[in-house]
């Protein structure tokens, strides 16, 4: 068995479909409680789509994101990303999959406090054979002046932009964002979404955002509402707003 995570002939579904979940469930224990985080979710995310998963806390949205990103494996069901059935991958293959296919953005940025902005981006870039230039990405996210600062010397918005830059370093086709503006103020949050929109439109990245903030759904192509681990509603947004027009 090879470590390759490129879509093989057999694995290849349709290139239109970027992410596909089939009857995906996830149960886990937290302390002494058994939690059914996701119950038989079936859905598809298309290439170049900007999709927002909405739901209150405990609805399973972060779990869903973790499963798509290969950070966690489902208890049952199938997940196909970029034509790869990631439920069939070994731990090593999953590592390689995350390295090449996925970019993560977290609520608390999760930057390495002992590395500078540029180094945090390079930290991810070093993992792939042909990474993008860290400086170029940082310039794209508007941090050319702050490259050599440590996370503690940057504002929350700047930290999140470093995190976005880091997510882009390996040039992934899918960007997964977990409450990316959860710890930012309104204006900074809008700027982050603007950046994500640009990436979605110009670089054709598939952007998946999970949030409890329903206002954010207005900028997405599609909104999926989750409740108690199930899809409660799917809304097709034919006229997504510009992030500048967002209000919450």
């Amino acid at each position, binding site marked *: 068995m090879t470590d390759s995570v490129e879509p093989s002939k057999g694995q290849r579904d349709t290139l239109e479909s970027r992410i596909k979940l089939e009857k995906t469930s996830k149960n886990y224990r937290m*302390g002494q409680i058994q939690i059914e985080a996701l119950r038989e979710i079936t859905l598809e995310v298309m290439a170049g789509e900007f999709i927002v998963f909405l739901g209150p806390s405990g609805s399973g949205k972060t779990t869903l994101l973790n499963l798509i990103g290969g950070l966690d494996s489902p208890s049952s069901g199938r997940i196909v990303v970029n034509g790869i059935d990631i439920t069939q991958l070994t731990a090593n293959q999953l590592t390689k999959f995350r390295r090449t296919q996925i970019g993560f953005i977290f609520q608390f940025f999760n*930057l390495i406090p002992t590395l500078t902005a540029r180094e945090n981006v390079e930290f991810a870039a070093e993992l792939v054979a042909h990474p993008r230039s860290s400086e170029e990405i940082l310039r794209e996210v508007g941090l050319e002046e702050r490259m050599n600062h440590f996370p503690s010397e940057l504002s929350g918005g700047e930290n999140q932009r470093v995190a976005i830059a880091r997510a882009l370093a390996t040039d992934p086709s899918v960007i997964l964002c977990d409450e990316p503006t959860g710890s930012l103020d309104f204006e900074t949050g809008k700027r982050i979404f603007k950046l994500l929109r640009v990436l979605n439109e110009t670089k054709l990245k598939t952007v998946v955002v999970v949030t409890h903030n329903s206002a954010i759904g207005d900028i997405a192509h599609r909104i999926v509402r989750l409740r108690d681990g199930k899809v409660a509603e799917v809304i097709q947004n034919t006229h997504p707003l510009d992030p500048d027009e967002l209000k919450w």
Partner: protein
Amino acid sequence: MVAMSKLHRKLLRDVWAAKAQFGAVSLVVLLGVAMFIASYAAYENLDSSYEGTYERLSMADYWISVDYIPQRAAREMNEIPGVVAEGRIVGDVSLDLAKESGERVAGRVISLPQQRHPEVNDVQVESGSYFSSHAVREVLVEKHLAEYHELEPGDWLTIKNGDNKARFKVAGIVTSPEYIWVAKNAQEPMPSPRTFGVLFMPQSTAETLFSMNGLVNEINLAVEPNTDRSAVLEEVRQILRKNHINRVTSKDEPVSIRARKIDVIRGVRTAYMVERKDHLGNRLLKMDLEGFQQLAVLFPVLFLSMASLAIYVLLNRLVESQRVQIGLMRALGYGKRQVVFHYLGFAFIVGAAGSLLGAVLGNALANALTGEYARQLALPFVVIEPHWGVVAVGMVIGIAMPLAAGLFPAWATTRMRPAEAMRPAAPAAGRRALVETLLPFLSRLPYVLKLPMRNVFRNPRRTFFMAAGVASAIALVLVSMSFVDAMESTLYTQFERIQNFDARVIFQGTGATATASYISHLEGIQQTEAILEVPYRVRHGEKVSDTSIMGLPEGSSMYNLLAPDGSLTSVKQGGILLSLSLKKKLGAEIGDMLQLEPVVGTIGDTEKRLVGFVDVPLGSMAFMPLRETQRLLRAPGTATGVLLKFDGEPSAKLLKRLYDLPETASLEFAGETRRFLDEMMGFFWVFIGVMLAMGAALGMAIIFNSVTVNVLERRREIAIMRAIGMSRNRLSLILTLENLAIGCLGGILGILLGHYLAVAYMAQFETDIMSMSAVIFPRSYVIAASAALVILLVSQIPAIRQIYRLSLPTATKDWSE
């Protein structure tokens, strides 16, 4: 230049961020490695120094002692291919050092060729010169004797042999490969230079002094390498036979007393042959060195084990606190192996930095230690060279042990699932401590006591590791202290409990018990007792030991015999008492019959019942009633010495009268011997002192780390307590109480561990000179425990200061820290 990967950069920066903790552990590794390299390289240096001295001064391979043999026998042996032989006269005399006190020293005179240096067992002239070609009244004085009595070339001394008495000029001060360790005989392996010394005189002078014209009583052989030794020895035996010496005995081929008696009847003369490995001076040196080698391994192993424990604790904490970062690394696509290696990198840095600096320090210390030891023993040639093998072993161990210790925490990262790792860990289930269930009133304690109590029990692993850190520091200090205590206790038992005399008159050969009563009537003498000490071979079944029997007056009050339980005992009619070390060697039990035969001569073989054991810390011997010993030797009224108790300070006149007794070879003062032993142990004290200092440094490093880690691990929790309004002082008090509670637990463990280690080590520490039993004085427990307490209180200061500086919004919110 190769760019440093970001993972490596993170590693370096993380180390730098916790530089105090990593520095402390590196320091422990440094100390362990330095100690190992210093002591082991010093051991190697000393071994090479001895061997080098033996080689440069052509130390003999064999010593053949006879009553007398013509010089030409030595010349004939010299003709054997591959053999260099020298004949010489060796005799014991009394030296009068021309001091006002009339002080006398038992001397051993060894003859040397006058015109040239001997080809075997040469001497190194340290000052002055070798014999001048014509002067016969010249001697060379061995360095230990010369230094003690401040003899210099040009001084005069008087040698007395029976009625022969002559004055000699000191031509030079020399060192001899045979007397690097000055041993008088197996019974007196460590005489003070005040009472015993060695000097060399021209062959012709010795012949006159001992009335042995044209004769020698010892032949020394040096055999070239690759020579067939058994063939050489056969030729030597032939030459001896030609000179009417038909029997050759050695340590491995003892002649039974029966055979000796038959030899006497038949007129068979015997030669006694000693191989270099059995040569007393060489054997004692090597034994001393082996003791040193044991210490060279024991302490570093203790240190590095503790360093490993500290690394383990530190990395566990690091991995735990970097859960989110680990989750992130895995999420970004770093492989498990990369993450494991990343965390092992911390252990590697600690090990490598400690080992590297330890190697540098160790080398410097090795040179200092070798120099100090060589100075103590007055070694003529000192080899100080780098021992790269030892350095390499030290460094490999210094790196490998932390790596091994880091493996477990590093491996733990592989079990972390990225998604879980990035989620804040579920708070541990809060519960009452077991003691609270057992002792319900504890639940009603104020929070300032209840919190520390619950914290101690909440995370048993953390509690255990901190307790283990404290325990190991205490154990180390305790083991070092136990050496001091055991030595002090040994000297105390010997000089305060057993010996109840101020001085001992040592006779030249044997004297009369009547001399004791004569001395007792001298002014300034309170009490005297005659003793008779004879070298004997004791046999119990298959087991044999050469020792000496001391004949003591029944009910002696000047030489107390202590039973193993510490109570007083006495020699018993018809029976023999053995020292505990002889008990061990012979495996004998009370009631067993022992065969006794004198080591020399044909008179005095008998069988005795073993009636008891005595504790003799210095030397090993057997005890019998004086009269019975005299009867055994068919020499009633003889003695080999007199024990004395002075009435106050002895006057110069009294001492002169004692020295002037015709039988006196020398006077040994108990206080003097004790001081000399202390001095001889000087190096040992230096070593233990260094260990103790390092032990304290180690304790500090370990406790500092455990306490800091304990506080840092709970930054957030502490920040929350601060946030809800707990004052810094109260928080500091809670932490201090908690640390003290864990410290007490560690203290108990440490005392048990230290005690066990000390006992285990002392059990092995038994030489022909000294048998030490494991003794730890209560003061040592107190010192070790209070040192640990002080260190603990001081070590928590940086951690508490951190709490003071903690940014509450950051610490309560930022999970990525």
